[in-house]
């Protein structure tokens, strides 16, 4: 017992040292996108509602729950630097991510040692720490997602899985993908389908109510960020594919494939099928939406803990299946597993710069640091001299857009009513009352059909 505790303490200490190294080497990395979210948080905390600026009701964020949490922190400590508040908020989510990944690997493999390996890989991933330091919703979203999956893997009837996935969907707008994927999978997997539907209604209702509220409040089906990025396909049609290839190169994930494949072959239960389907769906989704510009593979972070867990579980299965072999026979397999872990660890950590893609990523982080802290923060000070509170450099188009939208609905409605009155109703009368009703429209319709009939 004492020996086990000693190992746990030593292991935790190593994780803390790696984490401190990661945070120190990344430094004060800030992004303008985070400031956009914080602008909504600030207005919400001041009682102006979730708006970007005075009277500018546009959904320029895609992380509702994160924006709300930051607003709560700003309400409590309005004078504190928003980035400091967001980083304090990030800490419990980082711990949750590590805890959930431990649980996820534990639910896939029988030895807790391999959960430790998953956590080490997670700590070595510089992308995860960069995502935490910039304070966007990536880490809270991933933490909730992995927690939900780990609970589902532990017990497929766990009542908390769906509410946590709904929270993840509120954390990030495209969280509806894992939510609906889970619903479809769990529904097919369960034997009590009716009971499952009844149990999931409250959680899904919360999500639907939120979606309807934001649609009504902002007036558009999707957030503004979706429409802003919809042009990317036209300008850069291969960006999604290039993003995926660059991510693979800079993180070395191909090394994980043999162990993951081994795990799937050896252990084909609902957990591995679920994990594999989700990873595939997520990769296709990222390629389809065209990836992202931020230099820390943000869109692939949600599947990292699942990849690490599957990989560790694969190594566990391999070692278990070699139980009856002697050490000389075992050693090539153990060496192969170790090499895979080392390869990914070295590629993921910024301490070792192995590829041009990784070097480019680190340079881009430096560029962004300069851009935000020197360019934007300094410019904001100057702009406060130009624009007084409540003023704008250009009047918003929103009012015009809403009027146009309502006008279109009105025209569509009028067209439907006109169609009903002139064409459908006379036909109904004709059907029910025989040949007594002969409207001009009906005659026209008949003559039109006669013309179309080949002679």
């Amino acid at each position, binding site marked *: 017992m004492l020996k086990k505790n000693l190992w746990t303490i030593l292991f935790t200490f190593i994780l803390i040292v790696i984490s401190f190294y990661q945070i120190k080497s990344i430094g004060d990395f800030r992004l303008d996108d985070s400031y956009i979210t914080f602008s909504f948080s600030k207005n919400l905390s001041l009682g102006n509602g979730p708006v970007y600026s005075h009277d500018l009701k546009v959904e320029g964020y895609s992380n509702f729950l994160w924006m709300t949490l930051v607003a709560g922190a700003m309400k409590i400590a309005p004078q504190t630097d928003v980035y400091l508040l967001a980083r304090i908020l990030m800490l419990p989510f980082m711990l949750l991510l590590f805890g959930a990944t431990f649980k996820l690997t534990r639910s896939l493999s029988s030895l807790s040692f391999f959960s430790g390996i998953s956590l080490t890989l997670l700590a070595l991933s510089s992308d995860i720490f960069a995502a935490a330091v910039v304070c966007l919703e990536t880490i809270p979203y991933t933490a909730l997602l992995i927690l939900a999956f780990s609970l589902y893997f532990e017990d497929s009837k766990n009542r908390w899985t769906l509410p946590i996935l709904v929270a993840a969907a509120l954390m990030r707008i495209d969280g509806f993908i894992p939510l609906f994927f889970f619903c479809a999978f769990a529904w097919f997997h369960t034997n009590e389908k009716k009971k499952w539907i009844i149990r999931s209604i409250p959680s899904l209702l919360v999500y639907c109510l939120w979606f309807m509220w934001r649609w009504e409040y902002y007036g558009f089906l999707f957030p503004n960020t979706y429409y*802003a990025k919809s*042009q990317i396909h036209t300008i850069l049609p291969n960006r999604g594919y290039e993003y995926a290839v660059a991510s693979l190169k800079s993180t070395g994930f191909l090394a994980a494939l043999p162990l993951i494949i081994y795990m799937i072959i050896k252990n084909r239960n609902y957990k591995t099928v679920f994990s594999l389907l989700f990873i595939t769906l997520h990769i296709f989704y990222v390629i389809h939406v065209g990836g992202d510009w931020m230099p820390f593979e943000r869109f692939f972070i949600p599947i990292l803990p699942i990849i690490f867990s599957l990989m560790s579980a694969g190594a566990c299965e391999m070692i278990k299946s070699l139980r009856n072999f002697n050490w000389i026979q075992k050693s090539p397999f153990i060496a192969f597993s170790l090499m895979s872990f080392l390869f990914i660890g070295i590629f993921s950590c910024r301490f070792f710069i192995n590829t041009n893609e990784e070097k480019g990523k680190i340079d881009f982080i430096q560029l962004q640091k300069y851009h935000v802290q*020197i*360019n934007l923060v*300094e*410019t904001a000070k*100057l*702009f406060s*001299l*130009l624009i007084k509170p409540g003023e704008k*450099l*250009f*009047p918003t*188009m929103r009012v015009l857009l809403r009027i146009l939208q309502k006008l279109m609905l009105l025209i569509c409605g009028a067209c439907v009513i006109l169609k009903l009155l002139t064409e459908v109703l006379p036909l109904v009368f004709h059907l029910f009352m025989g040949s007594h009703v002969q409207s001009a429209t009906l005659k026209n319709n008949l003559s039109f059909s006669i013309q179309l009939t080949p002679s």
Partner: protein
Amino acid sequence: MKPVGKLSTHTEVIMNVWQSPQISRYLDLQNNYVTGRIVNLKTQMAAYFLEKKRPEKKFLTTHPEKDIIIEYPFLIQKTPVHDS
């Protein structure tokens, strides 16, 4: 923030805006907007911006603070035509 003489035309400023060709399809940045800049005379650095033309707005040079100028450098001023 850019050095004062870095951008020399209205079009050049528009081309420095992210997704400006797409935005221009709806807002016509070239014709409906003017370029302005806030210049820090001490550092000779400027923050460029686009502002919508509107009848009530006069785009005049101002000095909101010491060493700071707000100006509209590429605005074509209509000069009265004199008959010879």
